[in-house]
């Protein structure tokens, strides 16, 4: 068994706003093994990006981690000093953002920005950094790297910019790469190119990837482990096979039913009723219960605990508790 590189335990993150405290992440736990890919799926406002930002401590000023532990190779990074945190960011763990159009500085050249990352995180001098930058551009499949280094972000297409972002994130050979909706802004053929590149680089460099996305198709092709989030909590986590072929939470089931597939052309889609939850107005019980068809009375009042469904596969749903209790009852009888 490979080593746990990241262990997130009971993470809580809140934002103070004029309208009140927004609990964006409410007790999220998961772990990431070395060299593996973990996918975090959920709709907007489910807390998937905030979870990723909490790991890197890049929340906006009004946000803070209120509880929990994030263990990186056994060390709690929430206890890090700002200097240690700077070492962690970029060197041990880097991130690529959704929008490659706005995450590069338009006033500096690609070379300038790429070399900045290299100079900051490795002991190379300027000349070596330039060589390394060229090498990185080659690695991510950017043609004519020498010329690209002198260009500005606006001269490149969206797919190219996302490649530059990946090159920048990987320049210091991090142990973990967090990808926050890396292909949402890109076209399908470019998306396929970028995803293929990330998988190739993962094999070559051996880093672990945390992929944050709302696209179940992207997750299915990329990730070994999947976390499904709703309303700031983890609904279900397990291997890709567990989640896609044996979902144990009503939200996951609903999500999988609602996406069209090639074979169901003449069938009606089965949508999840209702609208996404308002984080300012969280219910007392399970966050999904107002949209759940099979909600029980207890779902309204109590948040379900995480239960083991099968080895490595966990779900937080009262229906599973009920089912397990019934099975136990039958066994006794």
């Amino acid at each position, binding site marked *: 068994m490979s080593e746990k590189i990241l262990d997130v335990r009971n993470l809580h993150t809140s934002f103070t706003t004029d309208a009140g405290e927004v609990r964006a992440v409410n007790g999220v736990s998961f772990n990431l093994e070395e060299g593996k890919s973990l996918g975090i799926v959920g*709709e*907007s406002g489910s807390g998937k990006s905030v979870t990723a930002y909490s790991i890197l401590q890049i929340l906006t000023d009004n946000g803070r981690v209120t509880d929990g532990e994030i263990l990186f190779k056994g060390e709690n990074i929430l206890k890090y000093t700002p200097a240690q945190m700077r070492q962690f960011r970029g060197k041990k763990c880097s991130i690529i953002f959704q929008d490659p159009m706005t995450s590069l500085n338009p006033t500096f050249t690609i070379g300038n920005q790429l070399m900045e990352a290299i100079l900051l995180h490795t002991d190379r001098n300027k000349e070596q950094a330039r060589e390394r930058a060229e090498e990185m551009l080659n690695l991510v499949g950017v043609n004519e790297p020498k010329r690209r280094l002198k260009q500005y972000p606006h001269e490149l*297409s969206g*797919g*190219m910019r996302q490649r530059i972002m990946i090159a920048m994130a990987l320049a210091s050979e991090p142990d973990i790469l967090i990808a926050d909706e890396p292909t949402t802004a890109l*076209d*399908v*053929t*470019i*998306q*396929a*190119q970028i*995803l*293929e590149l990330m998988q190739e680089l993962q094999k070559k460099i051996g880093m672990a990837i945390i992929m944050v996305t*709302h*696209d*179940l*198709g*992207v*997750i*299915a*092709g990329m990730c070994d482990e999947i976390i499904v989030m709703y309303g700031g909590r983890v609904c279900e986590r397990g291997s*890709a*096979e567990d989640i*896609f072929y044996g979902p144990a939470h009503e939200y996951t089931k*609903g*999500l*999988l039913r*609602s*996406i*069209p*597939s*090639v074979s*169901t*052309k003449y069938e*009606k*889609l*089965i*949508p*999840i*009723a209702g*609208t*996404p939850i308002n984080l300012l107005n969280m219910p007392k019980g399970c966050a999904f219960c107002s949209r759940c068809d099979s909600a029980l009375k207890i779902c309204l009042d109590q948040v379900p605990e995480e239960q083991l469904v099968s080895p490595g596969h966990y779900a937080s749903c009262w229906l599973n508790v009920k089912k397990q209790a019934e099975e136990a009852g039958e066994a006794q009888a």
Partner: protein
Amino acid sequence: MSDTKPLVDVRDLKEYFPIHTGWGRTLPLKAVDGVSFTIKPGETLGLVGESGCGKTTVGRTLLHLYKPTGGEFYFDGELVTEKNMPSLRKQMQMVFQDPYSSLNPRMTVEDIIGEPLDVHHLYSGRAERREKILSLMETVGLNAEHATRYAHEFSGGQRQRIGIARALAVNPRFIVCDEPVSALDVSIQAQVVNMFEDLREKLGVAYLFIAHDLLIVHHISDRIAVMYLGRIVEIADANELNNNPIHPYSISLLSAVPIPDPRIARSKQRIIPEGEIPSPLHKPSGCAFRTRCPYATERCAAECPELTERSDGHLVACFNK
């Protein structure tokens, strides 16, 4: 079905935008460069392609939101001109991509949905106007109590319902849907897609369904047209296109679609074209796809391939496939 007269008949539609390149010079940006297709009453034609291929421009040019540069558009046998467009808008409507910017924030839902009724004088008194608005709201699944609220009070999915009710207000026979679900959350997309299907069954409207999500387009469309840099490269029945794509661009586009099934996704062989889409300002000569096409020959650079019929209703614009 095959002998019914087409409701929408577009022939050689062109839309060029003048782009100022500095020093007083302009270049034509050929956003749509000779697009022809037909849609029968009650039929859904899906229009897919990547950003910048001109799919949105096709929809907007049909409704004269842009003045067409060339080509003809027959609606129910009648040639659409600038003169008869205002009255024809009673029969053609549009649903926009972004439900946040396509609704006026200063208007109540009642006024948004009522505006087309006002413009086309479709009621005789206030009571009838209100009645019509409420019945439209019911059709798209909104409550009567929502009528006095403003657009910002609604979620994305509900706003899109308001936009659809507005389009339906004039009882159109044809609706251009420009990426109507791409701004919505996955769990809400299915609600809106189902609504489009219900409305088609109930009211018999025809759709031009423009989107980049191929799984959704495949689900909702009878036929699908694939666009690349201003031209249709392939048009076929939805299942036929999915099972038997012929144009090299369609093949790579379909192979790039991420399938939400781990076993299929991992075993799938992707055929991704080299490089990126050229700028529509400097389109390659001949077939626009030739710079990325593995089958390109000299002929592709010299001539532009026309759509030719390969099997019943399956048209492809390629010399070599």
